[in-house]
């Protein structure tokens, strides 16, 4: 254990701070889920030019081209979060597709897509889940049949966030119907403007449509838009799923949320007493703070482990389950602090910010379910982490 940063990092932090001081006027507000505005595109370019976004993406693909340094990445995240200035874009194309292409894409694919994706010019959505294939993703049925130089795709995807504003989709389709389920899948890149694609918004409990259903009817995709080989899509997809699980359950988000709650407790009063002075609320705050700190330290441990190639398997496996549950519990606490006001969800003179917390409370329940349900996470933790066996297949009416 040595938590002192070396001089190189102290200087690096100073650079980040002076960049933020000089440029914060350009940064604008945190992004809403629509296509990036011109200001956002400019901000993204500025961040890439200075090495605060697309930091490790090679220069030839439009990135900054720095060597991977987990500590520097953390310093950037910490200081942007402290200054409440939005980081570089973090959409599914940037977080999931780009690392996959860098690892497994062809040269043409890298040249065609990485630069446009990290700049925000091309927006991607993810086509994985299907109505009949949720936790058992590998059972997916959307079919791609070869016809000349194209795949012809028919089927349906669900839980596709951002589909209505995306240019492209990275998608899993079944190309080898006779192969075992994990070996019949291919990973393809689909132009969302192709004829035969229909996007229908999927209204959720939040009252918004954060997700969509996407229907494919005879959609043609050039054969060279496959990433990896035919039938190897499951392997390609797992490369991206690893990146997604790293995104969900980010402890920086929990820490920011905890600070917002402390501010709320310092401002709000009930019967003239500040919430921060109420011992029952404080006890709950301290319990949550201990969990937030534990997860932050857990992420420090993971940083060192990845850097030094140390074994920290369990510490990694628990991040999605714990992080999403913690964020949900934090939102639930904020609502309880607001009490009756905490239920306000819509325009009202009496709203003290509860709409935001109610939305998070509902949306975060969605995140506990999405990206691998809590139940699936527990299966993974017990099987990969604790060495417990898979549950044998149930026999229903004599069939496995």
């Amino acid at each position: 254990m040595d938590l002192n940063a070396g001089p190189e990092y102290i200087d690096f932090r100073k650079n980040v701070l002076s960049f933020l001081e000089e440029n914060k006027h350009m940064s604008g507000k945190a992004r809403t889920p629509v296509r990036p505005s011109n200001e956002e595109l400019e901000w993204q370019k500025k961040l890439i030019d200075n090495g605060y976004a697309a930091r490790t993406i090679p220069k030839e693909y439009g990135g900054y081209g720095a060597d991977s340094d987990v500590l520097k990445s953390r310093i950037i995240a910490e200081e942007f979060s402290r200054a409440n200035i939005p980081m570089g874009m973090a959409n599914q194309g940037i977080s999931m597709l780009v690392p996959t292409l860098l690892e497994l894409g062809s040269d043409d694919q890298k040249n065609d897509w990485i630069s446009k994706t990290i700049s925000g010019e091309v927006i991607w959505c993810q086509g994985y889940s299907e109505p009949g294939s949720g936790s058992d993703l590998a059972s997916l049925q959307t079919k791609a049949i070869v016809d000349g130089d194209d795949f012809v795709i028919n089927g349906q995807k669900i839980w596709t966030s951002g589909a209505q504003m995306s240019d492209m989709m990275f998608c899993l389709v079944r190309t080898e119907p006779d192969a075992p389920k994990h070996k019949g899948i291919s990973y393809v890149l689909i132009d969302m403007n192709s004829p035969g694609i229909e996007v229908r918004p999927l209204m959720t409990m939040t009252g918004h449509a954060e997700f969509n259903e996407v229907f494919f009817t005879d959609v043609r995709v050039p054969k060279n838009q496959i990433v990896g080989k035919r039938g190897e899509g499951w392997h390609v997809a797992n490369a991206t799923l690893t990146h997604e699980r790293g995104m969900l359950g980010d402890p920086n988000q929990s820490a920011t949320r905890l600070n917002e709650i402390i501010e709320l407790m310092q401002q709000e009063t009930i019967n003239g007493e500040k919430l921060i002075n109420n011992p029952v609320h404080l006890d709950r705050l301290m319990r949550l703070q201990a969990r937030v700190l534990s997860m932050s330290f857990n992420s420090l441990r993971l940083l060192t482990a990845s850097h030094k190639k140390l074994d920290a398997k369990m510490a990694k496996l628990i991040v999605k389950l714990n992080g999403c549950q913690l964020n949900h519990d934090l939102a639930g606490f904020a609502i309880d602090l607001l009490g009756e006001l905490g239920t306000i969800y819509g325009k009202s003179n009496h709203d003290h910010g509860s709409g935001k917390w109610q939305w998070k409370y509902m949306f975060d329940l969605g995140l506990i379910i999405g990206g691998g349900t809590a139940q699936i996470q527990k299966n993974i933790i017990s099987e990969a982490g604790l060495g417990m066996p898979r549950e044998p297949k149930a026999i229903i009416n004599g069939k496995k």
Partner: protein
Amino acid sequence: MEFALSEEQGILSDSIKKMFDENISVDNLREHSKGDKSLRKTIRRSIVDMGLPGLMIPEEYGGSGLGVLEASLVAEQLGSYAVPSPWVGNSIMAPTAILFEKDYHLAEKWLPLIASGEITACISLSEVIGKRGDLGLTANGDKVSGINIFGIDGELDPAIIITAVDNNLILIETDNNGVEINEIPTIDSTRPVVEIIFDSSNYQIIPGGKEVIQKTIDVGRIGLAGDLLGASQNMLNKAVEYSLERKQFERVIGSFQAVKHMCAEMAADLEPCRSLMWYAAYSQDFISDEANLLACHAKAHLSEVGQDIARTSTQVFGGMGFTDLLGMHYWFKRIGLSRQILGGPERVRKEAALIQGFEI
């Protein structure tokens, strides 16, 4: 920056583990709980032979000069094996107290004796943290009288007792000094606690006022958090192991998702505690402005997680968990005691809130 144990720290843990593996079993814990004190003696001898009692004592006083993190790794192994031997009071709290203001007279007199294992030191600070009724000490000139309870590491005829009176930490020699020590029977037979009756006992002040009292309690809480981490991890490991042997409905019970998910939840709760523990212990020596808060969080959070694991892992064993045959209850009870001594979770969280300036 490096957030990981060093190679030396890993070797320290492994060597202690090996020693306990050879010396401790559920059978001898059971004999010990029935009153056979031979385990206490053999274990103490092995700990002294390894030079552990002086782990945190500087080399000039015959110790190894290591820090709170290393001491908490030892505590973790003690918890893991439910070891009946002094540690948190004698080897973490006492040296921290005596070294706080580098009082050379006290240090020269007592630290070499603690390091060599010739004496043990009992720590009795329960009345500072939460005084019950009219317990506690009253000073009259250079003498104190009164009754303390829940002194820790007082089972091997300690030569000194470190306690507090009137906002001062004090040291009391036990020999011919009006001191009577009696073991208090608690749920936890692996780790005795004591009642101490002082009758006009002479005392010396350990310099440092309220600050040395707080620091001594902080490192004690870190030690208990380490013990809780080890005990909880052991209960989880044993539960998983058992679930892979025990069969019902022609399957090992560890193949049922109901059981797997209980184990996964325990692991998910416990694993981040390890990082909390490392950071909190490290901060005691290297990040002084966070040390107090982190000691509170480590103790309170591990008490909560430990309690859940004690209950849940016992359920994984089914009826066998409830019996004395497997002896898992020794850890269940050890966790139960660790949760309460030096402040239960609510009390410690209240301190955590006060430290941050949140007024109650």
